[in-house]
């Protein structure tokens, strides 16, 4: 597990050219993140309006398993997507193809190349929940995209999501912080992936993909994060008692009154004495 994460990190700095014939980003563009969850296959990804793919339609090149792209703005529409082994001629038969992928305007999608439950590579689109989370919370989404039976997701050794099957997802809003996450076959607590530490940052969504194949013993996790989902605290309750009152004005008024009474009394006394 540690090794897999290290491999993912090693490819982190690689910036890949993403060439798309699209107009400048518009406000209602969809945000699309591409996730590679097929082990052992470095690929090129193509996107096209028709069913033939040309070199100009390459979205991603040399895309490594276990990695995730930054979100890309795409105009809403219907796309055909194809995955070829890296460097392969795109006019041939793709390794994976998904036709008629709907990308609604303004949506936030993750397009995931992964293995289905029986181990065949597929391309699937997941809609990402970008509703704000409450102040102090973080969202954890888990997607089963591995050739593996139903699994439970454990956090700190306890199941948080149970009986998740490929290609389903489950999610929960949790207090922000670090959790130790692991994947176990449904009904067991013996990890088949992990445990791995996940830093659930406040106001973000952390999307964890369990990918790979149980049969080939290469199950692993890929992580996508979506930021900017934070909410403000509801208020600032900064006082549980009244500030002790300032007694200065009462003291001053008292002094003035006493002095006036004294002055009156002494004035009358002065007149009486003289008389």
């Amino acid at each position, binding site marked *: 597990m540690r090794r897999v*994460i290290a491999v*993912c*990190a090693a*490819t982190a700095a690689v*910036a*890949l050219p*993403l*060439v*798309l*014939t699209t*107009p*400048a980003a518009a406000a209602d563009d969809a945000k699309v993140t591409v996730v590679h969850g097929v082990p052992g296959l470095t690929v090129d990804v193509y996107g096209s309006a028709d069913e033939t793919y040309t070199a100009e339609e390459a979205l991603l090149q040399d*895309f*490594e398993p*276990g*990695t*995730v*792209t*930054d979100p*890309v*703005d795409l105009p809403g529409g219907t796309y055909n997507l194809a995955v070829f082994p890296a460097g392969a001629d795109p006019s041939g038969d793709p390794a994976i193809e998904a036709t008629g992928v709907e990308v609604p305007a303004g949506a936030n999608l993750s397009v995931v190349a992964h293995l289905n439950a029986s181990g065949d590579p597929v391309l699937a689109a997941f809609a990402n929940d970008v509703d704000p989370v409450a*102040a*102090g919370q973080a969202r954890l989404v888990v997607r089963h995209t591995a050739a593996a039976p139903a699994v439970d997701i454990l956090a700190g050794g306890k199941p948080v999501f149970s009986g998740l099957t490929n290609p389903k997802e489950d999610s929960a809003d949790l207090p*922000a912080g670090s959790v130790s996450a692991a994947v176990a076959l449904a009904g067991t607590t013996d990890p088949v992936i992990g445990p791995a530490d*996940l*830093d659930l940052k*406040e106001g973000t969504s952390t999307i964890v993909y369990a990918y790979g194949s149980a049969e080939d013993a290469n199950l692993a*996790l*890929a992580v996508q994060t979506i930021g900017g989902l*934070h909410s*403000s*605290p*509801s*208020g*600032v*309750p*900064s*006082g*549980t*008692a*009244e*500030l*002790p009152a300032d007694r*200065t004005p009462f003291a*001053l*008024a008292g*002094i*003035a*009154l006493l*002095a*006036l009474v*004294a*002055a*009156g*009394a*002494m*004035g009358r006394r*002065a*007149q009486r*004495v003289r008389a």
Partner: protein
Amino acid sequence: MEPAAAARRWRVGAAVSLVVAVAAVVALTGWFLGRPAPTAGDGLGALRETTTTAAPTPTPTPSVRPSVSASVRAATPEAATAPPPARLRIPALGVDATVRAVGVQRDGAMVIPASPTSVGWYRYGSAPADPLGHTVIAGHVATREDGAGALAPLAGAEKGMRVEVVDADGTTHRYVVRGRESIRKKALPVDEIFAREGRPLLVLVTCGGEYIPELRSHRDNVVVTAVPVP
């Protein structure tokens, strides 16, 4: 004693008493006039300005559309985090408080440290060293247990007063007060106060206004904005 001398002494006494009375009235007038106004400086102008003005966003590398570049990121992207603030000082008001990093209560409101010498920094928002967003520090005006709180003097904040925030790593960030305002708690513009975008701003919050014993709460929040001094 001669009646004339006695009369003189009583007259002097009366005069002195009168002078004391007048002095007390003058002092009282001075106290009334010297009370802080409900608003100081431009109130919440600074707050609105920083949230409504477009932030100086880093211009993306000039790239000819339609060519965009997507980077592939690691399983867990590392983000540099700014050091948390550790101390808040407002010399003109005698405020010198320990700053603790705080989150939210179960009801969603910001946590306020109970100690009368501590204030809370909203740790999910921006820190003084962050290039964008508001640093929010709040403290009690008073608590049932300890009386006056760390930010009780905030009601006297005036435009131009200096504020210092010292980070945990020892860096001092200097600010100058732009304004102070009392706002009904129900109308507190939380999204503007806790903004994580926009130009850096220090927002200090405490309570004020009428105290409602049944709610164990004040009617208002006192909000002070301070801008960084370059």
